[in-house]
């Protein structure tokens, strides 16, 4: 059996090998993230059967929780680690050909650290440890957004940094208050103590932690940085930020609110926030003329949809929300990767410059269409299965308010359909402007895009096994007693 610690330790070790490898060969540094992701994929496949039946608790250094730090590799954490490795693999192959300017070594080092941070957040069982991994994720993404050092990128990165740093300050303050109240940092121990104390006293740390994590998760009033950062970053980084970073933020919010605080009274509030996030994101996306900015706003909308589904808080809807999260990672990652080379070839980010792209870049256009249709939620793609699961479970839960909110969310989805169809129409049915440049994407870009597109179709055609695993993950998130029992003897 592979220990889940290796999911964090091996990528971290490889990340720090990059400067050494870089001394020998600059090109070889690009292979390190691929190596790390391949290792993680294999490890996840080996760990997953055991984790699905019974969560694996790893005691770091042999200290028993709540005194030592422990990792909690339940179904949710391991599935997330697999998703990170999968998206990370696709993006790191893509970056081999795409990233040619600047210090390539530093790019790959920061990129791998970002993945380490994401893996750490989803696997840890200690709130301060979560904070540290979260900071690794955030700091490397600030640096990567401004990687090219151009005007837009630096402006976006500095805005992102200031907002993100305020968020992590609030998060740390919340963690400090929790420690002052309960004298422990272990999530399971905190959950047990919060359950027995009850009342309003835990509201202050809960509010601080949700608003701190909410900045990275791009929940509605806290997401002003996202459209700038996701659209100005290099395209592979946009893909990983949209596909992994905000999802990990959402995971952290859900883990804290549901498992640690067990704050079911907070759910109605988060549900409203989710619906508001969907509408705000999709309406802003509809007005965009810049394709990457449109995709960035659409990420806000999708985050809102996931948050809405999670906070309906029935086993089906939480599983549906996680499914939507997965299909968004695959779909939006694919869209940013495809858009990256279209922009690279046409030299402009305006949607009108993509006119007639299908004749110039057939494969890239095809996978863009697959990603867009999946995001809209059309069969036979992954987005259809996940949205169907959300709608079905929310209607099964019933209630007037819930149905109204679901209606608002579906309006958002319709708007999303409208603008994504617009782009697909421009790519396939508008005439190529005279003198437009364009050439096919290189193999290093086509392989990861086809990989993601194939995954979207496979998950869309056979959603059964994925949905089954996600139901286990949902109960991992919702069942506090099992979580506490698993960690504390």
């Amino acid at each position, binding site marked *: 059996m592979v220990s889940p610690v290796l999911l964090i330790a091996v990528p971290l070790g490889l990340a720090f090998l990059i400067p050494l490898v870089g001394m020998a060969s600059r090109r070889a540094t690009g292979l390190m993230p691929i190596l790390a992701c391949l290792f993680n994929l294999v490890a996840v496949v080996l760990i997953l059967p055991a984790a699905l039946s019974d969560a694996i608790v790893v005691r770091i250094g042999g200290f028993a929780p709540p005194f030592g730090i422990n990792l909690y590799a339940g179904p949710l954490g391991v599935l997330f680690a697999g998703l990170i490795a999968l998206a990370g693999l696709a993006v790191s192959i893509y970056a081999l050909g795409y990233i040619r300017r600047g210090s390539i070594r530093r790019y790959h080092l920061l990129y791998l650290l970002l993945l380490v941070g994401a893996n750490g957040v989803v696997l840890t069982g200690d709130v301060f440890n979560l904070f*540290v991994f979260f900071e690794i994720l955030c*700091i490397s993404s600030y640096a990567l957004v*401004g990687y090219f*050092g151009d005007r837009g990128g*630096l*402006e976006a*990165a*500095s805005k992102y940094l200031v907002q993100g*740093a305020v968020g992590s*300050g609030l998060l740390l303050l919340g963690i400090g208050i929790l420690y002052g109240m309960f004298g422990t940092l272990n999530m399971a121990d905190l959950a047990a103590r919060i359950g027995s104390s009850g009342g309003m006293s835990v509201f202050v740390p809960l509010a601080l932690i949700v608003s701190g994590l909410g900045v990275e998760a791009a929940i509605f009033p806290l997401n002003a940085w996202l459209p700038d950062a996701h659209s100005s970053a290099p395209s592979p980084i946009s893909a990983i930020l949209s596909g992994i970073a905000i999802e990990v933020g959402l995971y952290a919010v859900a883990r804290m609110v549901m498992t640690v605080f067990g704050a079911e009274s907070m759910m109605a509030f988060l549900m409203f926030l989710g619906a508001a996030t969907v509408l705000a994101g999709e309406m802003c996306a509809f007005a965009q003329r810049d394709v990457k900015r449109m995709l960035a706003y659409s990420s806000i909308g999708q985050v809102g949809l996931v948050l809405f589904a999670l906070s309906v808080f029935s086993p089906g809807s939480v599983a549906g929300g996680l499914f939507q999260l997965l299909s968004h990672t695959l779909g939006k990652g694919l869209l940013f990767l495809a858009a990256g080379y279209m922009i690279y070839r046409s030299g402009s980010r305006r949607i009108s410059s993509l006119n007639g792209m299908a004749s110039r870049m057939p494969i890239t256009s095809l996978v863009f269409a697959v990603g867009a249709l999946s995001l809209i939620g059309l069969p036979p793609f992954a987005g259809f299965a996940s949205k169907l699961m959300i709608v079905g479970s929310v209607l099964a839960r019933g209630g007037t308010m819930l149905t109204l909110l679901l209606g608002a969310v579906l309006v958002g989805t319709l708007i999303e359909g409208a603008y994504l169809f617009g782009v697909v129409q421009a790519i396939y049915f508008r005439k190529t402007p005279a003198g437009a440049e364009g050439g096919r994407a290189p193999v290093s870009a086509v392989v990861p895009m086809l990989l993601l597109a194939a995954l979207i179709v496979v998950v869309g055609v056979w959603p059964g096994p994925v949905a089954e695993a996600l139901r286990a993950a949902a109960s991992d998130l919702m069942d506090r007693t099992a979580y506490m029992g698993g960690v504390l003897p």
Partner: protein
Amino acid sequence: MSFLESNVYYMGALGLVLVGLLVILVRHNLIKMIIGLSIMDTGVNLFLVAVGYSRGGTAPIFSRAASDPAAMVDPVPQALVLTAIVIGVAVLALALAMAVRLHGHHGTLDMRKIRELRW
């Protein structure tokens, strides 16, 4: 008076956090915003230390504490603060490096003037 007396460290620390937040919100100069960030970080760190503080407590060193463990200050928040300070320094350094590059591009650090990206 006793409430104030027993909570004076918490109030000071939270006051620093609020001062930092205020600076970030009302100043437009990026350097000043970064200073605000630093003040806020200091406040949070001070709060963490205050959580583990006990008046007249001894240093959390095992040999001395063995004689009277109850008089020892809590070592865990101090370890947390060490980590948080390192993280804060890293963020600060990155922010200042970006500010230098941004000034090179725009010739100003006024965030009201650096607004090429819009909604």
